[in-house]
């Protein structure tokens, strides 16, 4: 029987559904392909959209991801959750599109968003503490969009590194391998991306914007 997203709930039930679905997929049942796409496709699209920003590119990435999944499902050992495996394949497919369009090679300066220092190494303008109530606002549904938009303003390579490391929890080494850069370059770009994102969030968090 093909697993259905509404057939059960909870981690144990989901694992059972996934095991059943995997069995059908390995047997090459076309209905299982459709069931997997309907169950996980929406979430995979959301992940791809974070990396690509354009709906049509995100759909292209998810399409590539599903084809890779169906071709590799026989090799999936079940060491991780099915959703985790699909997530990583989706990120990889999105990176494939960024590479194909050479968007990771564009070096856009991020310097304007980094802190400024005087020649003696001290700050050229005072820092202030973030207001806890403003930070808490950003954790809520509607204002979370503001954080996503700020991430979207980062140059592509910095945004990609930040998402892979801080959000999707790829290791430094794996991020470097997938992006074709050295681990030290991953660390440097991540640090600059975090600083730039902090600068973009600061007006809201210090309450100095309207």
């Amino acid at each position, binding site marked *: 029987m093909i697993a259905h997203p509404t057939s059960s709930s909870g981690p144990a039930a989901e694992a059972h559904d996934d095991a059943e679905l995997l069995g059908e997929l390995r047997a090459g049942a076309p209905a299982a392909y459709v069931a997997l796409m309907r169950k996980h496709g929406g979430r995979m699209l959301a992940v791809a959209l*974070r990396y690509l920003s354009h709906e049509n590119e995100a759909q292209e990435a998810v399409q590539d991801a599903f084809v890779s999944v169906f*071709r590799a499902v026989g090799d999936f050992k079940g060491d991780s959750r099915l959703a985790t495996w699909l*997530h990583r394949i989706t990120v990889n497919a999105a990176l494939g599109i960024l590479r194909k369009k050479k968007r990771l090679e564009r070096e856009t300066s991020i310097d304007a968003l980094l802190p400024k220092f005087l020649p003696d190494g001290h*700050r050229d303008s005072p820092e202030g503490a973030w207001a806890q109530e403003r930070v808490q606002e950003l954790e809520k549904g509607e204002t*979370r969009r503001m954080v*996503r938009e700020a*991430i979207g303003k980062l140059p592509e390579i910095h945004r990609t590194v930040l998402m892979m490391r801080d959000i999707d929890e790829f290791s430094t080494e794996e991020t470097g391998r997938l992006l074709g850069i050295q681990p030290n370059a991953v660390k440097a770009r991540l640090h600059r991306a*975090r600083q730039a994102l902090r600068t973009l969030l600061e007006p809201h968090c210090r309450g100095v914007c309207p």
Partner: protein
Amino acid sequence: MTCREFLDYIGAYLSGELSEAECRELRVHLDVCSQCVDYLDSYQQTIRLSKIACCADSDPVPGDVPEDLVKAVLAAMKQRPIERA
């Protein structure tokens, strides 16, 4: 240690890559520089907020996968079927 040097070490400090001596040096700077205390706090908040904003588990399940996409994948699989032993 200056504020600029402190900033250069934040990433490595938070990921536990610094030696005990380097950590001590950073903490000495934090003891005398409230601006870097605030910066470190906001840097950590930034990491946390980006995760909260984008973490799939914290959002409602996105909408259905478009039917065109499902058809395109099925067509691609039909065009080049998986060879089974």
